[in-house]
């Protein structure tokens, strides 16, 4: 540990860690607002529980798989269980190793939480907990290793500044597989499932944007030009995506939807994630504006299929992530910290990016299928029909999101917590 950590860079990543930490609850609001009221708590808990499951597993094993020295495919065990992670500078950075570990941990948590949007309102909570735990070790950590941990994609020169591939393409692909295997909600395609609270969803989108400054900017790991560029690009791209989305909305139906606006902000953020440290601000505007188009129509189309990817994780994160990865190959520029891409004469980069996409989709798809098939072998993946009709908040969490307590009879709590005689009614 010859060089002590740089205080400015350390502070930057420290603040960024707090910002990314906030993104998982922000996602709970984003997804929760889109769910129905009877499933709001289940939806929110699917995000929040990732802190407990994925967060702890990250410390125990995930971080080591992703970032310990190992093979081109997977890291070793030298960093498992917080071993060898202290306050000394991490190699290749100017910040303490412990901080790098925590910063990366917040990424692992939110990536797993992202998938939940595909299977809300019917998946059993226990099966879900098991699923994201395994998934974070078997899919997330290895792919993070491939790209950022010294693995084969990184070595090959595939560009992914802040996780377009590692985070969004994996989550989007897993969403596709999970939605297929868990199956559509009862009455999907016959009944409309409408967002119970659009302002909640917009609040989530706003907090996601705010946190994403730490996600993308912080990925520079130092306060330098790249950090500034990544941050500004993270502000510009969603503005452009929003402008495109509202324009399509107004052109198609004359009405600018708010759910569309919240979606557009996220899509712009997803698309700029792999590119933000490699492209110019003008390119960021272009990427945001362009990426909104495939996402808009992917989401539109999906609703008429049998794929009940309920909150459109595939449409927003999968499509946005892939578009962003490919556009990184188009717009990346050596002058802005990247490798020159198609626009600067190097079409090969697009090929590399495509390879990254294909490899990630393939492994994620296969492994996600395997994990869910294994879980299905030991427990049902979804709740019963009656519970689904009643709502998962009551049946899986024993609570209601919103209640005025009318008709609630207080039950005297005996020592062992078995509900006994009702004491009296409550209104």
């Amino acid at each position, binding site marked *: 540990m010859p060089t002590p950590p740089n205080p400015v860079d350390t502070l930057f990543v420290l603040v960024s860690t707090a910002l990314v930490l906030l993104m998982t609850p922000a996602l709970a609001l984003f997804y929760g607002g889109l769910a129905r009221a009877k499933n709001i708590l289940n939806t929110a808990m699917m995000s929040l529980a990732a802190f407990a499951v994925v967060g702890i597993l990250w410390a125990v094993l995930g971080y080591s798989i992703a970032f310990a020295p190992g093979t081109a495919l997977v890291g070793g065990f030298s960093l498992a269980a917080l071993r060898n992670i202290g306050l000394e500078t991490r190699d290749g950075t100017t910040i303490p190793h412990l901080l790098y570990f925590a910063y990366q941990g917040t990424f692992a948590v939110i990536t797993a939480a992202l998938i939940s949007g595909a299977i809300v309102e019917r998946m059993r909570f226990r099966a879900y907990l098991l699923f994201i735990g395994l998934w974070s070790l078997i899919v997330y950590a290895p792919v993070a290793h491939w790209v950022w941990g010294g693995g084969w994609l990184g070595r090959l020169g595939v560009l992914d500044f802040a996780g377009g591939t590692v985070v969004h393409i994996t989550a989007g692909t897993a969403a596709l597989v999970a939605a297929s295997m868990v199956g559509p909600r009862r009455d999907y395609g016959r009944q*409309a*499932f*409408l*967002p119970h609270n659009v302002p909640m969803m917009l609040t989530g989108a706003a907090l996601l944007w705010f946190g994403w400054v730490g996600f993308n900017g912080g990925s520079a790991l130092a306060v330098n030009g790249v950090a500034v560029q990544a941050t500004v690009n993270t502000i510009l791209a969603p503005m452009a995506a929003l402008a495109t989305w509202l324009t399509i909305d107004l052109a198609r*139906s004359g*009405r600018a*939807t708010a*759910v*569309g606006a919240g*979606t557009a902000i996220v899509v712009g953020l997803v698309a700029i994630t792999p590119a933000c440290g490699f492209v110019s601000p003008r390119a960021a505007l272009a990427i945001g504006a362009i990426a909104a188009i495939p996402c808009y129509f992917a*989401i*539109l*189309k*999906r*609703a*008429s299929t049998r794929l009940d990817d309920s909150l*459109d994780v595939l449409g927003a994160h999968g499509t946005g992530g892939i578009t962003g990865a490919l556009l990184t190959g188009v717009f990346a520029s050596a002058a802005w910290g990247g490798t020159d891409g198609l626009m600067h004469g190097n079409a090969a980069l697009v090929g590399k990016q495509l390879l990254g996409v294909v490899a990630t989709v393939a492994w994620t798809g296969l492994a996600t299928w395997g994990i869910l098939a294994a879980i299905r072998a030991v427990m049902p993946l979804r709740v019963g029909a009656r519970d689904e009709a009643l709502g998962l908040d009551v049946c899986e969490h024993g609570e209601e999101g919103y209640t005025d307590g009318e008709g609630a009879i207080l039950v005297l709590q005996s020592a062992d917590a078995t509900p006994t005689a009702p004491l009296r009614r409550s209104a």
Partner: protein
Amino acid sequence: MKLVVAIIRPERLNAVLESLYRAEVRGLTVSKVQGHGGEVEQVENYRGTTVKMDLQAKVRLEIGVSESFVTPTVNAIVDAARTGDVGDGKIFVLPVERVVRIRTGEEDQLAVTPEAPAP
């Protein structure tokens, strides 16, 4: 003794309450309901999901009145609630066998006799 049940537009509640007040009808109960009639449906879009909204927000009034008040009450409602567009709503007059004022236990006529307005 009759129970007048009226379904009206929410935006006319204001006017109807005033009109009933002028007709000296005092007690009444209001609830939020949704109605389906001949109204034009509204279309909404949420991402890829397009829906027609089949039920419109309405307000339901329930007013217990003595026989002599039935017609003034119905007229007061009709006057204030009418806009002339489809969807103005309906009034039903139901027979009532017994009315009790919970506070006093008074029954029938006494229980719904108009009282002085609130101070």
